[in-house]
Every structure is written in C-alpha cells, then in structure tokens.
C-alpha cells in the first residue's frame, strides 16, 4: 500500500485552557482532494498550520510522505508543502514576477526564473507578470497566491478558503486550478465553507468541530446519515396511489401533491414502477432523493456526539 502523502494522527492543540483541535486523525493520498469543513472557530486553520509545521501540536503527530514533522525536520518538509493562507498575503509593491521570484529563491530552487515562468504560464499570469500586485483584482491576487503556493512544485497543497470573497467567475477559475492540481498528482487539503465547491471538487470530506466529526466521501456520509429514498413524480394527484404502494410492501410512503416519496430500499425500483403503472399512474420522473451536502453537514454538526468513520480516516 502506498504511503499517504499526509498523515495526521491524534492531532491535538490547546491554546491555554482552550482546546482548538482535539484528537483529529486522517490521511490524504496523492492525487486526492480532501475538503475540511467546519464552522468558524472549529480549528480548521489551526489544523492546517499544524500540518504545515508552523505550530506544534500539543499532542499527536503529522507525517509528510511518511516522514515525521518535527521542529528539526520542519524546514526540510515544508519544501514539499504549498500553503495558500486565508489572505493572499502578497507584497503589493512588488510585481507578480517579483513576488513569485522571491518565493522561488526562498525555497532554494536551482532554476528560480524557470520555475517562475512555469508558474506564470500555468496560472495564465504572463500578461500581468510585470504589474504590481496592488493593481490586481481580488481574483487575480488569489491566482497569484495559488501560483506562489506551488511555485516550488510541492506534492502536498494546503488551501485555506481559496475562493472566499471571490466573484463566481473568479471562484470557478480557482476551482479549475485546484482540480488541475489533482490531475498533476498533488494531494490537496481544501479548507472551505463553500459546500457547493466541496461537491464539485472534493473526493472526500472531513467535518471538524474541534474534533473530527466525520471523514468519508459525500456519498458515504449521506448513506450513513440518511436512509436512501425514492421520489416519483406523477401526472396526477398521488394520494390514490400511495395506498397501492403500501399494499405492495413499500415502506414509509409520503405524499406531496403529485409526488410520492418512499424508502428506496423497501422494494426494488422496477417493481415499484410496475405497480404504479399497473394501477394506472402516469409517471413523469423517478429519482433517488439525495439530501444535499448541506443537510449532511448540518446533521453531522447537530449530532456530533456520534462518530462516522471511513476507510482512510477516523475520529474518536
């Protein structure tokens, strides 16, 4: 089995008497995007900082491609990590090229100018490379910050709210760049409040509220929290057919105008459809009724006493 790009084991961080992060364990594989979700103050940024070796955990450990993150090893291991902080944090008086160039040299790259040119090309910043970053739009600044985060070709990328405050077009551009990072085989940990974004780009989701509430794919989390349901829209009022379904063995049948909703696993879908057609129902659509990720997220936070596990991440 391949060594995970990043492993967090029982990560805990206290600030005086306040517990910011408690006993969080998860893994991140190369070419995977893991979204870290949680309300404000849930410890997401603290977790990212511990993973980047910026602050030490009170207890627990971080491994970067199997190497333990210790204070001594941190400067070396940080060369494998790209970190996009919550604010772009660019030097406004420097040009785009100068910003990237300083970072390429801080990472000790052998050919810093080439690395900068590659990053400028990848993020389509060539035309603005000689502009001072103070003159860039918020979206372009975020693009430069992303280019800076990977100018040294890190294998692990930590992104703290990369689309926060961006207009939809800029946010979409940033999302495409994040997906591009996965294609390049980078392991991406995406910290965000944007659940739609998570649905679009993340392979797995981790929900944090000081402690890790759940880790898994969106589908896994849905399955664990909500029984799958079937929604059938009819061309006429649905009440008369609810009794037909119940008598055929369907469970938890609900009626809402011309729609029927029932537990999906109570009867096979073709059987349910055949029963309705034989009873004279006009079926317009049949679909699995999946709760949104937002519903999953809210349910998880409300019932955080429970623990949800997946194959590659666990919490207490």
């Amino acid at each position, binding site marked *: 089995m391949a060594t995970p790009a990043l492993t967090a084991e029982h990560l805990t961080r206290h*600030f005086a008497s306040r517990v910011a992060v408690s006993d969080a364990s998860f893994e991140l594989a190369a070419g995977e995007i893991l979204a870290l979700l949680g309300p404000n103050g849930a410890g997401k940024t603290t977790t990212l*900082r511990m993973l*980047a070796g*910026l*602050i*030490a955990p009170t207890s627990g450990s971080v491994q970067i491609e199997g190497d333990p993150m210790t204070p001594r090893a941190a*400067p*070396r291991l*940080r*060369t494998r*990590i790209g*970190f996009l*902080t*919550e*604010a*772009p*944090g*660019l*030097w*406004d*008086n*420097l040009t785009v090229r*100068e910003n990237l160039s*300083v*970072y390429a*040299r*801080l*990472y*000790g790259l052998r050919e810093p100018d080439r690395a900068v040119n590659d990053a400028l090309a990848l993020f389509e910043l060539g035309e603005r490379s000689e502009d*001072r970053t103070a003159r860039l739009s918020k979206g372009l600044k975020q693009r430069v*910050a992303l280019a*800076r*985060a990977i100018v040294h070709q890190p294998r692990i990328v930590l992104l703290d709210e990369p689309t926060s405050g961006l207009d939809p077009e800029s946010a979409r551009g940033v999302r495409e760049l994040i997906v591009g990072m996965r294609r390049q085989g980078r392991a991406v940990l995406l910290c965000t409040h944007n659940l739609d974004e998570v649905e679009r780009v993340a392979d797995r989701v981790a929900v944090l509220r000081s402690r890790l509430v759940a880790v898994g794919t969106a589908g896994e989390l849905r399955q664990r929290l909500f029984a799958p349901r079937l929604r059938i829209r009819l061309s006429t009022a649905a009440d008369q057919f609810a009794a037909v379904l119940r008598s055929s063995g369907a469970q938890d049948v609900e009626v809402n105008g011309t729609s029927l909703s029932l537990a999906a696993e109570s009867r096979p879908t073709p059987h349910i459809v055949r029963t309705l057609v034989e009873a004279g129902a006009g079926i317009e659509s049949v679909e699995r009724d999946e709760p949104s990720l937002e519903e999953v997220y809210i349910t998880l936070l409300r019932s955080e006493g429970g623990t949800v596990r997946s194959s590659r991440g666990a919490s207490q």
Partner: protein
Amino acid sequence: MRMLALLRKELIDERQNPALFFPALIVGAVAILLPVIVAIIIPYATGERLSDSSDFQAALELYRDQPRTRGLDPEAAVQAYLFQFFAVMLVLIPVTSSMALAAHSVVGEKQARSLEPLLVTPITTFELLGAKVLGAFIPSLALTVISFLVYVSVTLVFAHEGVASVLVGPRSLGTVFVIGPLAALAALQMAVCVSSRVNDARTAQQFGVLVILPIPGILIAQLAGAFTLTAPVIAGIALGLIVINAGLMRIAIALFDRETILTRWK
C-alpha cells in the same frame, strides 16, 4: 541565499516607497544646515568673528592642545569645533531612517498578512530577522555615508581651510560611523520589537524617541560643558550600545518565534 532573497524584496519595497526616507532626509538637511548657519552664515551676516567671542575660548584652548588642530587659525579652529560638535546630529539620520524602514517593514507585513506565507517557506527566524534588519540598516548606512560626504564637502566649500581635514579625524568618524550605526541598529531593533505589538508603523516609530532623545542630550551636555566627545567617551557609548543591541536582539528573536507571530500577533 534565503536571507538575500528576502533582503532583495525589502530593498525593492523601499525603492517603491521613497516617502519612507523623507523624515531622515529632513533630519539630514537640518543636521547639515545648522552648523553652516551657526559657524558660517551668522558670523558672515553680523561681521563678527567667532574666535573673538569669549564663549569659544575653551574650544580654542582645546584645539591648541591637539596635534591635528594646532596649526589652524583661531577662526578655523572654532569652525572645526562647531562642525565636530554638530556632527552628533548626523547620527540622527541613520536612527530616523532605520526606525522608519523597520517599522514599515514589520507592520507592513502584518497589515498585508504576508508573514504567514513567508513562514511556510524553509526560511529560519534568524534569516527572516537578518533580512529585515539589513533591509533597514543598509539604506540607513548609505544615507549616513552620503550625508557625511555632503557635510565634509560643505566645509570644504564654505569653511576655513583645514576644517574639513579635522572632520575626517577619529572623533567625527567615530561619532558618525561607530555610534551612528550602533544607535541605528538599536533603533531599528526597537522598532521591530514594538512593531510586533502594534498595527501602525507611526506608533512603532514613536517608541524610537527612546533612542533619539539621548542624541540631542549628548549635544546639550557638550554645550553645557558636561563632557566632550573624546575617543574614550565614544568607545564607552559604543560599548553601551553594543550591550543594548545584544539585549534587543534576544527580545526580537523571541518575538519573531513562528508560533508567537501566528497565534499572538494582532
């Protein structure tokens, strides 16, 4: 290499912000003009010789005792005394500029929230602090050299013969190029320390008054005859500044701890 990369950034940043140098340039202009007014313009305007004034008899006697100044005519000796006396003011140039640059540098990073991405790189605290200190110190030192050259040139053009050569002696050079840089270093380290606790560069600079105040103090003490800036006095002040600098450096390194910056700097 990493320190040089960040130092380069500091210098580019300063080049884009010429206003940062205005306070030091104003101080420099005053430091150069003041002795010219006192030693050259006022005597010229009033038609009175400084060497005839009883106020400067002590200076004349002092200069007659020193081999370097023994050959000067009385008016030149008084002018040399005044230009050496006011040379202390040149120390204010590196102190003012280094304070402004250091405060802008650290507070600027805080305001731009650019410290965290910087800390993610493999740069060490020593390299980070070194680049910040050098970034403020090098331009300040350059300003000092330029100001001193202007100071000497002014005496060459306007003062009596021999005055300029007295200024290029150990007393003036020690004052400007030993006390000056050491005081500048103390000022900029203080600005760095204070900057870690405030979010406004001007507030950080105001604390630099603690370093600036003793300099006019030296000027006034000399004027009052409390002491003269002789080589041993300069060495004593330099030693004191070295001790202060060592203490400030320890504080600055402690304040620049990564965790402190990320979790406590506001």
